[in-house]
């Protein structure tokens, strides 16, 4: 990658049968940058994020990641094993990632340390468990899909701190959000999508006064 971007999507598109979820899209994410993907439900935000994470194959186009860059992905829906405890989930993914310290993450994100199955935890705790799994590889690129949707204010602040920590260390953050507070506290740049197409790409301040923001309200 010769643009200096940590992550770049070139003409990525995704179709599910005859339905076009994401039209051909280009996006570059650079170090020290936090990008918010915004738009109404069904705009293609989560699809684009999953493609950037490598969790979903694009129908067209390619995704490039700078050599040696570690990425962490937190999807919108819980993505862990419900019958295993948080500790066991972190152990499984730490071994698969060959990285991470489950004890440190359990403590940092204040996750339950008992043997309860993850499926019995509150939605907020499950969301934090997903965040912990995404942080296992000590990511330089952090991809978060509506990460604050079920968090209480305290946990929301912790998440913003974590995201800013990645960005400030020279990494990049891409987060899907419907929450204006996320834009204020984390994002530098907004990419707005509507019906699978990018309709705005620019700084947060410009977005807030743009026609795109008005259209999306």
């Amino acid at each position: 990658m010769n643009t200096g971007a940590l992550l770049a999507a070139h003409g990525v598109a995704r179709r599910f049968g005859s339905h076009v979820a994401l039209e051909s899209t280009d996006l570059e994410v650079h170090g020290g940058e936090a990008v918010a993907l915004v738009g109404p439900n069904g705009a293609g935000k989560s699809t684009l994020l999953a493609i950037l994470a490598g969790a979903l194959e694009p129908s067209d186009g390619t995704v490039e990641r700078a050599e040696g860059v570690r990425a962490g992905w937190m999807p919108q829906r819980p993505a862990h094993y419900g019958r295993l405890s948080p500790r066991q989930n972190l152990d499984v993914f730490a071994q698969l990632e060959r990285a991470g310290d489950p004890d440190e993450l359990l403590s940092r994100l204040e996750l339950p340390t008992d043997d309860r199955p993850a499926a019995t935890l509150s939605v907020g705790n499950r969301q934090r468990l997903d965040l912990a799994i995404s942080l296992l590889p000590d990511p330089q690129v952090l991809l978060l899909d509506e990460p604050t949707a079920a968090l209480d204010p305290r946990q929301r602040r912790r998440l913003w701190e974590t995201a800013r920590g990645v960005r400030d260390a020279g990494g990049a953050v891409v987060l899907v959000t419907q929450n204006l507070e996320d834009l204020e506290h984390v994002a530098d740049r907004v990419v707005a999508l509507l019906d699978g197409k990018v309709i705005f790409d620019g700084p947060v301040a410009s977005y807030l006064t743009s026609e795109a923001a008005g259209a999306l309200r």
Partner: protein
Amino acid sequence: MRPVWLILRKDLLVLWRSPALLGVLIAYPLVIALLIGLTAAYANAKPRVAFVDLDGIPHVVTVGGASFNIDHLINDVAKNVEIVRMSQGDAKSQLASGRVAAVVTVPQGFIADLKGLVSSPHLTLATGSGGITPRVRQQMQALVYNLNLKLQKAFIQADIEYVNLLLHGGKGRVLGHDFSIIGLDGTKRLLEQTPDSPQRKKVLDFVGDARLALALTNNAIRATASPIVLDEEKGEGRTSLLSAQVQAYGLAITITFLGLLLAAGALAAERDENAIGRLVRGLVGLGQLVVAKIGLAVTVALGVGFAILVGFGVAVEVGGVHGGEPWQRIPLVLVGVLFAGAAVGAVGALVGALARESRTASLVGVLVVLPVIFIGLIPKGIVPVAAWVSDVFPFVHAVRFFASALYDRSPWETIAREAAWLIGLTAVFGAIARLSVRRLAT
């Protein structure tokens, strides 16, 4: 292979933390195996056969001086069928509807022919159509054979009495007519009272030869009636519940159920739990995921298979039955369990990939397993097509492998052939599962 091992270990941990699920998964196929065993036993038991008596057979019939209670005689020899007396009309209707498998008719004049001891009386057998007919025909032939065995003693006795009449003279009765003859003894006595002559000497010689020959007739008649006599010894074989086939079927049914459902459910659950997205981001390849699920089926099959083998071995020892090598052959059977577990695991992985979510996978798994098992139970001789279809699924090959490994004196040819089948099926179903598993990641 590290990711495969890690996913397998995770699945075993999930299973360990789901004891109710594990218990049901183990108990259910065992119950099915038991039910199939009972059904098979029922199938081998007594088909209903209508008995139509057009001759009004009395309860007791005297033939050649011996009395027979006909009801007792029929019940005695009809061990493999359930004889039900009914009218000719009922019998015809029930045969048409399949409620009876055959109709045995005693025609008018049967008892008269039987008592006459001159010509053989006839019974008429009418059978339905379908798979059970050859078996019913055999059982009715066996019934007539056993009736003949019982009656032949009376017939032989009557024949011997006729011979004795020829030898010693006396009174007799044939076809309702009484008669009195002097016999060879009387003939000799009369001849000895006549004047000596060459003709008298020749007749006396003939009488002597005839007496000697007829004296040997007794045994000859018995031998003619039964050229070969089957003496039945008290059996020392296994009870049906411990037979090789039941063990092989029990093992194969359990492994097929467990392996297929576990592999299907575990693969589909990766999508249900939304974990597949994390895994395919370079942590675990889709092929490795399929191999891990096949590995899960193999691991559980080996554990449960070993427990079943030990259970059967203990039952065989406690029962003091002979035949087979319940302990020595366990390692060989476990090799078969490994191959069988892999093959059903591959089928399960395919089901899981196609079903995409675990509830559907479980339902489809059961829908697939039952016909695969039942089609493997149909004897080739009855429906050849069923045998060809069952050949493309692992169940029947597992049964043959286990039965041969457990009890054949020289099992190598069979187990090599069946192992090759199981390995081939694993490769084919595994490859299709690998192609299909992409559906989970979309």
